[in-house]
């Protein structure tokens, strides 16, 4: 990573963290729905996303990859809208190459394979990165997608964020395998393990996978070992299952602290710039949240885009809703 990239990474990582915090507050105020913070996984998310070409390559998210989406151009207000429960937040701009947030664990993995396959069939050399967790890796979709990827030799990076937990289920109860990455050979794809809290390492390992993918050498399964520094989501109380002191111990490996320390030690960063950056982030997050909140969801979101043209019955149901709700202020 270049010096500039390092600072960029720090910028995205801290923005992600600030947005997390803002969103958490909004959730507590009842202004935003249940959501899962990235906290602790910013190096893993941002470092990997930076290894792909923005505007050409594709991000296939699960739900905990805000930083990757930001790197690839997702407008922040859309992110807020989505988690505030406004369907228009799911409308990713045409020039942003991101698939929708995926709530169904691992269901996006075959999508990533199909997407990469489609682009290759059109003689395009786009690469696709798909994010998912240690928990999601136990789903059948993981297996089927990786096996298809191997056979089809498609340019997909399966980026497994092993953050130690699937809600309350520890990694040790998720599989008896010694690593997740070792599954790669069972599909004839490349495999790699990386310290997910080291943004440079994540970037480098992903970069290699991208190069292989772009060169038509197929897919890679990357296990990024990181840690979820907090509850699973805003509805979760992790003190019920995380051993006392564990979060505090793991907080010492906070990837943001680590990168900041590195930047400062290299003379690339200082307290003053940091304060300014964070203040800017706070303004940006605040601004995006306000913009998002101002765009009230319209009743027609229920009906629009179910089909290209509604079925006769759906059209009737929409007309009925229009009669009931069409006059409400939006």
């Amino acid at each position, binding site marked *: 990573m270049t010096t500039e990239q390092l600072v960029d990474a720090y910028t995205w990582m801290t923005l992600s963290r600030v947005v997390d915090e803002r969103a958490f507050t909004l959730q507590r105020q009842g202004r935003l*729905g249940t959501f899962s913070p990235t906290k602790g996984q910013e190096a893993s998310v941002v470092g990997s996303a930076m290894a792909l070409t923005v505007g050409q390559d594709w991000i296939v998210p699960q739900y905990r990859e805000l930083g990757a989406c930001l790197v690839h151009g997702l407008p922040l207000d859309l992110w807020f809208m989505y988690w505030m*429960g406004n369907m228009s937040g799911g409308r990713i701009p045409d020039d942003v190459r991101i698939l929708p947030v995926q709530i169904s664990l691992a269901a996006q993995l075959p999508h990533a394979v199909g997407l990469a396959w489609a682009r290759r069939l059109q003689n395009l050399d786009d690469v696709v990165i798909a994010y998912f967790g240690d928990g999601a890796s136990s789903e059948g979709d993981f297996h089927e997608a990786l096996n298809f990827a191997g056979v089809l030799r498609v340019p997909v990076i399966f980026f497994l964020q092993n953050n130690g937990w699937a*809600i309350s289920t520890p990694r040790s109860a998720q599989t008896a395998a010694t690593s997740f990455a070792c599954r790669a050979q069972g599909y004839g794809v490349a495999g790699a393990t990386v310290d997910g809290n080291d943004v440079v390492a994540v970037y480098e390992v992903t970069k290699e996978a991208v190069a292989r993918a772009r060169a038509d050498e197929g897919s890679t399964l990357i296990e990024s070992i990181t840690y979820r520094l907090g509850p699973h989501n805003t509805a979760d109380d992790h003190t019920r299952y995380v051993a006392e002191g564990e979060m505090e111990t793991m907080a010492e490996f906070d990837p943001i602290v680590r990168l900041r320390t590195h930047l400062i030690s290299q003379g690339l960063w200082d307290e003053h710039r940091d304060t300014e950056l964070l203040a800017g982030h706070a303004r940006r997050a605040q601004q995006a949240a306000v913009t998002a909140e101002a765009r009230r969801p319209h009743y027609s*979101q229920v009906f629009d885009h179910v089909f290209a043209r509604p079925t006769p019955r759906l059209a009737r149901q929409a007309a009925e809703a229009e009669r009931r709700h069409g006059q409400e202020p939006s």
Partner: protein
Amino acid sequence: MTTMNMIEAINLALRESMYADDRVMVLGEDVGQLGGVFRATAGLQAQFGRHRVVDTPLAEGAIIGTAVGLAAGGMIPVPEIQFLGFAHQAFHQIAGQVARFRHRSQGRYPMPMTIRAPFGGGVRTPELHSDALEAQFAHCPGLKVVAPSNPADARSLLIASIIDPDPVLFLEPLKGYRLVKGEVPESAGGDTIGSARTVRAGDDVTIIAWSASVQLAEQAAVRAGEELGVSVEVLDLRSLIPLDVTSIATAAAKTGRVVVVQESPVTGGFASEVMATIVEEAFYDLEAPVQRVGAPDAPYPLPGVEEIYLPSVDAVLAAIREVTSE
């Protein structure tokens, strides 16, 4: 009598069932140490141990698939699917295996199993957590589908489901988990699966509903009395499979004016089965077309517009008005 909410009633029933029969075991995502994301299984692992309350890896197909093997091997599994939407990952195991094993083996391998899952909307969840999908499972021959609306029924029907020698999909209304409170008797009694219950007597209109829609029906009934002077009877189906055809026919015939309320999208929902049953069993008693209230034929949307999506008391009232208009 104790007052409790749905979650407490379910927790109680699980505890009673596990205490009564040590073949009963609970398995699923986050059911053990955490006690379930809604705390339905809270305290069970501490009481019955890690062998009988098991945190599994994250795979719904295998949660149900291993439950098939557990049942074949002599246990009485009570798997939890964290949200009904994710039972789709196990649809092949539920429809193709659980429901058919007794028939396939002509009785050699019965499937005493109760699959618990919360479902339904109104609590501002992320996508795929709120759809009312009961109709998809009510058309899987060999599977029973139970859907209580209140704590007393949740407790007695869950116990009955676990005792039942056949597989039951036990649907718990997410919205009612904490919101719906009610009296629960000391003893669970011998409730049976397959019987509907009149939860409110009335003379002019019959509303038929199940699960969370029963509360909607009751609210509409009160308002119909106050605002329209219409006396409304409410029949709570409690179980979709077996369907209490007799009670449906009786309740429909009593007033001749019927409204069926479901939370799911209209087309192909279980209300259509109830209507078909009424046509078959009580056609000549009908005074007006049966009215159907449900969600539009769209996927459950994000929370911002869920109140528009979900059937409302107003919509039920409009149906009552319609069915009494001629």
